[in-house]
């Protein structure tokens, strides 16, 4: 297996981008990444997009975007694993290079979510759950995560305030990220007074609906060195696992088993343990998700994720900073782009280009991206050489 | 011996009081409460219709019958509020209880009498040995026009009866029906609410047919009022059954157990059948029961049942009707009731 490096990243301001189409949003990010990498060659590309069909009535976007990027006829594939589509695109790019098939790969993610009504967006997102045995009964994504939250609170004593603290922390980080959709701070009180969406989750426990894209350029470490890239940022671990997409079919609905198993594989490949990780970008689609994820990744004991936030362990200056970018909560959640944007943040941190949210002396970082209520999970570990 | 082998009731848990309706329409609540003996009525939730009520009543009937639903050879739902104008309620009920595919099925409609007609057909099919068991259901989610007198009573409920030859809890001793063409109440195709002939619905409709059927069956069998432990009449309000009972020589005690209308309203096709379930809940072996339905348009079916020893074994196997009525309830304001009943026009 060949070693894989990241040599370019691209991401523009996220939000409700009324005047931009899916293709414009994506091409802007892809061009930024290509410029950042300073290369004139791409062998193949992988694009994570959950539901361009339902959001924009456009399928077949892999070819469309290769064409608009001016790189056709190179192979281009769209990959889908609901909200983990971006993370999956990263893994496919990683495998492509590691296996020796391609030397330079563009990995991107995009979602244009505001071309439909709110009801239309809710429906499209809902398709990540079991259509016949979850959605049929009228459950929504906030509803499914609320079921997890309620059970987690009941089982471990996680508090409503602890959930709010996740949002407060991520907004604090996001306020220092000029690309974030909602770059402002909020208080616990703001969260607790925001409208209930699905008890106990409130509006400010939920990530927003976002238009956005992100792109990165991968190549062999050998090529990165030849190009005199500094620092050399390597992907040293990649793990991917699945679980039932129906939440109720799991033995323990508070435990993200796919994340645990993907992390195990990534740690093994990277020869690292949770203690080695300096910071992480994780999938906080809802506040409860970040709590469960930090447990499944082994950063904290089962049931202690809420307590960890409260103690400030996941803050920017904490033991293990989680979501320095602002996370899905503040930065936005253009579903397919999220898993790629997480890597953009890792690279910016490693290059010490993260401005006010810069974490000092970080050398090992992790991204975790998941689909649905955790029916799919991708974990990647990165090292700054 | 042919008769009932299992019975079950189901009544929605939502209620609206007569006062709450009267308040909205500026009507005189006491005249409904005292004059017609109506206190409150059941209201189906947004997710309930004749089919869902029928399924739940049938599940209760199956619990009491203790039979394999595959042995049910006919499913007849009698109702004036079938959710589909075209597409049977019965197939959905049959599928839900597991009686398909070897089963006779069609929906019945005869104003408030469709349930007893379904009972009569099931009884006859069992008697003629066409089927082993037959499931007859009377169920409705009836609607009265906003502000109309019927709005105070039109309600929702279902009663289900399984007829058979073995393990009978109440034998059918006799049946009798009395029909004429009497336009006392109707609903035209595509109309949301029914219309009625006002006071014409009394003497020439309800009383004439109930008296005709009751007198006919008693004459046919040589029985008198005092030969019955209980009698159940169709109950569009609380006054008519008592009045017709008195005309036939029945006491208030004979009528009261099966008189549900003050507490749940007129459940139309479920009305007298639900009264019968309440009576069977407390009946003793040997009790003789007279049931007389009435359906506008118009006609009455009369049945004489004789309760058997097996009644004691089944009474506690499913919820009892008065326990359902007195159980968990949620009272609605008129606005919520109007929403539940689809009376609010939306964009």
């Amino acid at each position: 297996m060949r070693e894989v490096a990241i040599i370019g990243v691209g991401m523009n301001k996220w939000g409700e981008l009324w005047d931009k189409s899916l293709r414009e949003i994506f091409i802007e990010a892809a061009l930024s990444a290509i410029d950042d990498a300073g290369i004139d060659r791409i062998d193949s590309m992988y694009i994570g997009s959950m539901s361009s069909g339902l959001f924009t009535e456009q399928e077949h976007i892999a070819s469309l975007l290769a064409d608009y990027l001016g790189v056709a006829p190179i192979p281009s594939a769209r990959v889908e694993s609901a909200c983990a589509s971006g993370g999956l695109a990263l893994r496919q790019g990683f495998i492509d290079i590691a296996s020796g098939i391609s030397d330079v790969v563009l990995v991107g993610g995009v979602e244009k979510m505001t071309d439909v009504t709110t009801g239309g967006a809710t429906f499209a997102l809902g398709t990540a759950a079991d259509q016949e045995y979850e959605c049929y009964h009228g459950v929504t994504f906030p509803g499914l995560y609320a079921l997890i939250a309620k059970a987690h609170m009941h089982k471990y004593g996680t508090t409503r305030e602890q959930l709010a603290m996740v949002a407060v922390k991520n907004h604090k980080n996001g306020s220092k990220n000029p690309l974030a959709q909602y770059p402002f701070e909020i208080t616990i009180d703001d969260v607790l007074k925001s409208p209930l969406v699905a008890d106990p989750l409130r509006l400010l426990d939920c990530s927003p609906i976002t238009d956005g894209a992100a792109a990165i350029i991968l190549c062999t470490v050998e090529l990165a060195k030849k190009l005199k890239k500094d620092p050399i940022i390597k992907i040293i671990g990649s793990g991917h696992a699945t679980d039932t997409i129906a939440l109720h079919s799991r033995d323990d609905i508070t435990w993200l088993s796919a994340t645990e198993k993907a992390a195990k594989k990534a740690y093994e490949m990277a020869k690292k343990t949770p203690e080695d990780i300096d910071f992480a970008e994780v999938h906080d689609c809802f506040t409860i998700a970040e709590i469960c994820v930090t447990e499944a990744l082994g950063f904290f004991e089962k049931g202690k994720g809420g307590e960890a936030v409260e103690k400030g362990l996941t803050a920017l200056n904490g033991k293990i900073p989680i979501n320095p970018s602002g996370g899905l909560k503040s930065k936005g959640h253009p579903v397919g782009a999220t898993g790629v944007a997480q890597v953009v943040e890792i690279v910016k941190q490693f290059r010490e280009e993260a401005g006010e949210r810069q974490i000092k002396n970080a050398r090992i970082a992790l991204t975790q991206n998941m689909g649905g209520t955790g029916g799919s999970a991708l974990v990647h570990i990165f090292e700054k050489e | 011996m042919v008769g009932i082998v299992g019975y079950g009731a189901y009544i929605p848990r939502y209620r609206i009081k007569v006062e709450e309706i009267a308040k909205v329409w500026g009507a005189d609540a006491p005249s409904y409460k005292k004059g017609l003996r109506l206190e409150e009525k059941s209201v189906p939730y947004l997710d309930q219709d004749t089919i869902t009520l029928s399924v739940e009543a049938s599940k209760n009937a199956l619990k009491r019958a203790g039979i394999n639903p595959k042995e049910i050879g006919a499913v007849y739902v009698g109702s004036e509020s079938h959710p589909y104008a075209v597409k049977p309620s019965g197939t959905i009920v049959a599928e839900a209880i597991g009686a398909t595919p070897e089963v006779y099925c069609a929906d019945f409609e005869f104003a408030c009498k469709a349930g007893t007609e379904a009972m009569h057909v099931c009884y006859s099919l069992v008697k003629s040995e066409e089927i082993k068991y037959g499931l007859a259901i009377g169920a409705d989610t009836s609607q009265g026009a906003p502000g109309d007198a019927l709005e105070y009573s039109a309600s929702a409920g279902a009663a289900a009866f399984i007829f058979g030859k073995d393990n009978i809890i109440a034998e059918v001793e006799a049946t009798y029906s009395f029909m004429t063409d009497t336009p006392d109440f109707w609903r035209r195709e595509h109309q949301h609410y029914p219309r009625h002939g006002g006071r014409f619905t009394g003497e020439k409709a309800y009383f004439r047919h109930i008296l005709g059927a009751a007198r006919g069956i008693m004459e046919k069998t040589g029985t008198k009022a005092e030969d019955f432990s209980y009698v159940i009449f169709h109950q569009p309000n609380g006054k008519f059954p008592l009045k017709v009972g008195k005309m036939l020589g029945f006491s208030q005690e004979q009528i009261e157990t099966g008189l549900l209308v003050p507490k749940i309203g007129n459940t139309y096709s479920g009305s007298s059948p639900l009264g019968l379930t309440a009576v069977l809940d407390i009946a003793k072996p040997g009790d003789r029961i007279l049931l007389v339905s009435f359906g506008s348009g118009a006609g009455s079916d009369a049945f004489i049942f004789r309760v058997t020893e097996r009644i004691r074994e089944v009474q506690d196997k499913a919820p009892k009707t008065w326990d359902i009525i007195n159980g968990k309830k949620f009272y609605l304001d008129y606005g919520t009731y109007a929403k539940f009943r689809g009376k609010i026009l939306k964009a």
Partner: protein
Amino acid sequence: MITPQRYWREIPQRYRLEAGKCKKCGYICFPPRLICPKCKNREFETVRLNDEGKIASFTIIRVPPEQFSDLSPYAIGIIELNDGVKILAQIVDCDFEELEIGKRVKVEFRKIRSEGEAGIICYGYKAVLLE
């Protein structure tokens, strides 16, 4: 939109809670599957799930999908049935304050949704609290 054929295909599960019980290890799959996720056996017998159970978790949906807007707000729970199988279902006929993890419920047959005023009516299971 749910087409009649897509709805019809699931009727045994929606109406009767029909599940597949693995003939080898006894694991109950709801809905039925072609291969047992526990022991990989491929032979099943059709069983009907117990219609009583308890609340494993619940929430109140206050921002519903469009087809469910008339019901809003409504409760949804994960119900652990007596045979150990978990299902997701609405919990109806309750005050939200009554809901608690562990409370006993039973399944009732209800209308789940309908495709507008003229389309098919879709039925299925919901939970109600046991009294």
